């Protein structure tokens, strides 16, 4: 049994790191209703900024993680302020984020400090304890955010942006806040990832990865934190357990997107959380009205 522990730990690490990024995108896409094809770029910014800081020994690991989050936040403001203010059509907005992601890849490929396409070799700092702590912190703040006036504003915008405005919601500021928070989570995920795999290169943060994140959120359910987390668990751990699946992971993501759009646009969990089911279950046990 003990021979399996490193293996299980590894799966926990990759799933946990992925769930942090997926939760970030969930807030933006699932709860605010805006689609992004560039969120892997925020993961990449977090990975590179924190990676560069530890690689050249500017700061320690923890400061580097925070700096990665801050960097992703700043990047989200740069792309978010002009595009969200312009109130683009939702598909044009998705395309603008795609362009942003591609521009970042070119940048990473060509800077000296990032060591270009060859990538950066880093030390391993992300321990299971650090990840566990980050994961709990992210899920805690995300669910608090959604219960607050800001979260209510995001959901209102997703449901009906005009009615949201007539409920006192500032469209631009709420959308921007949602983007910034989701980018910060993705940036954290990037920093954790860089110091777990101990190696980063630009093509780890491309359109394919952005699409994967989006597929996970859509498949899990737009408007649910637990749904995307479950999908992330399945999609990250299955290819690890069954090695031959690895090659088919990306085709499967693609196919999944198409099938979900056609057959179940609300995703696995729809607009519910796992906890909702526990509540229903409890009520049934008590023999309550519902």
């Amino acid at each position, binding site marked *: 049994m003990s021979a399996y522990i490193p293996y299980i730990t590894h799966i926990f690490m990759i799933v946990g790191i992925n769930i942090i990024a997926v939760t970030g995108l969930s807030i933006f896409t699932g709860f605010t209703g805006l689609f992004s094809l560039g969120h892997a770029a925020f993961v990449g910014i977090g990975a590179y900024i924190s990676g560069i800081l530890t690689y050249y020994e500017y700061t320690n690991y923890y400061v580097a993680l925070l700096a990665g989050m801050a960097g992703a936040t700043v990047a989200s403001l740069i792309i978010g302020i002009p595009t969200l203010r312009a109130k683009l059509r939702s598909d044009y907005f998705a395309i603008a984020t795609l362009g942003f992601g591609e521009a970042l890849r070119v940048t990473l490929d060509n800077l000296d400090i990032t060591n270009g396409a060859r990538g950066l070799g880093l030390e391993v700092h992300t321990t299971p304890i650090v990840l566990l702590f980050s994961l709990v912190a992210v899920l805690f*703040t995300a669910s*608090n955010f959604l219960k*607050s*006036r800001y979260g209510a504003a995001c*959901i209102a915008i997703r449901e009906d942006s005009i009615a949201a405005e*007539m409920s*006192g*919601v*500032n469209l631009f500021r709420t959308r921007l806040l949602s983007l910034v928070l989701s980018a910060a989570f993705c940036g954290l995920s990037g920093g954790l990832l860089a110091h777990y795999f101990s190696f980063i290169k630009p093509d780890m943060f491309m359109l394919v990865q952005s699409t994967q994140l989006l597929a996970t959120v859509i498949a899990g359910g737009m408007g649910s934190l637990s749904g995307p987390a479950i999908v992330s668990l399945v999609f990250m751990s299955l290819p690890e357990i069954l090695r031959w699946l690895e090659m088919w992971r990306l085709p499967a993501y693609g196919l999944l997107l198409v099938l979900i759009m056609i057959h179940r646009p609300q995703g696995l969990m729809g607009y519910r959380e796992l906890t909702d089911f526990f509540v229903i279950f409890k009520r049934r046990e008590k023999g309550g009205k519902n």
Partner: protein
Amino acid sequence: MELLEVKELSRNFGGINAVDSLSFEAKTGLVTGIIGPNGAGKTTVFNLITGVYKPTCGEITFDSRNCTGLRPDIIVKTGISRTFQNIRLFKRSTCLENVLTPILQRKECSIVSALVRLGSARRIEREAKEEAMSVLSAMGLSNEANRVAGTLPYGLQRKLEIARAIAASPKLLLLDEPAAGMNPEETLSLVDLISEIRRKFNLTILLIEHHMDLVMNICDHIVVMESGRLLFRGAPDEVRRNEKVIEAYLGKSANKQKA
């Protein structure tokens, strides 16, 4: 005293004046009705007052404050809220969440305390929830609090939309065809409900409606529009007797019946 004053308001869409130098007032505490044939520009007036559209020219003064061309969310905060002709609820949220949304937007809560959900954030949440429940029960919806809004029957959806508008704590409430799609019984109970919430929440009401009995029953003052312009305004009795109105509005429907 005038709570809302609309002066020379115009809005042009691609060369057509949907609203054409329209002026009227809504007096504090009264119910003012806007009537007119389809396409007269009534809903456009609502959209201009609430900032959904920007006026081409003209001035809107609310509570002695110039509100012309402000953003909708700012206008809501000055004290105007509304319902929509084609119901716009947050369909996949519960009734409680629908009503909670505008209440939460009125509460100050910094982003940091929202993220860590400190004691103060919890207190705000609790207060907001109580407030939302009291609004729901005023509208007779407390039993539906946890129901998903999109699954409510049509009549209740209209009520829920009014509840959400009240939850924004307005001084002026704009109702866009609140009785549309209701049967005569439901319309009658709506009349009672509107008078009740008016007293309870101390509201001034501006409403668009096609049901003439409702309008004549409930309104203290009526504004008649035709092709974006003001045709006539006055008390219900005066409107009923006015020849221009009969010709343009009632006369048309009389002609329709003949044809």
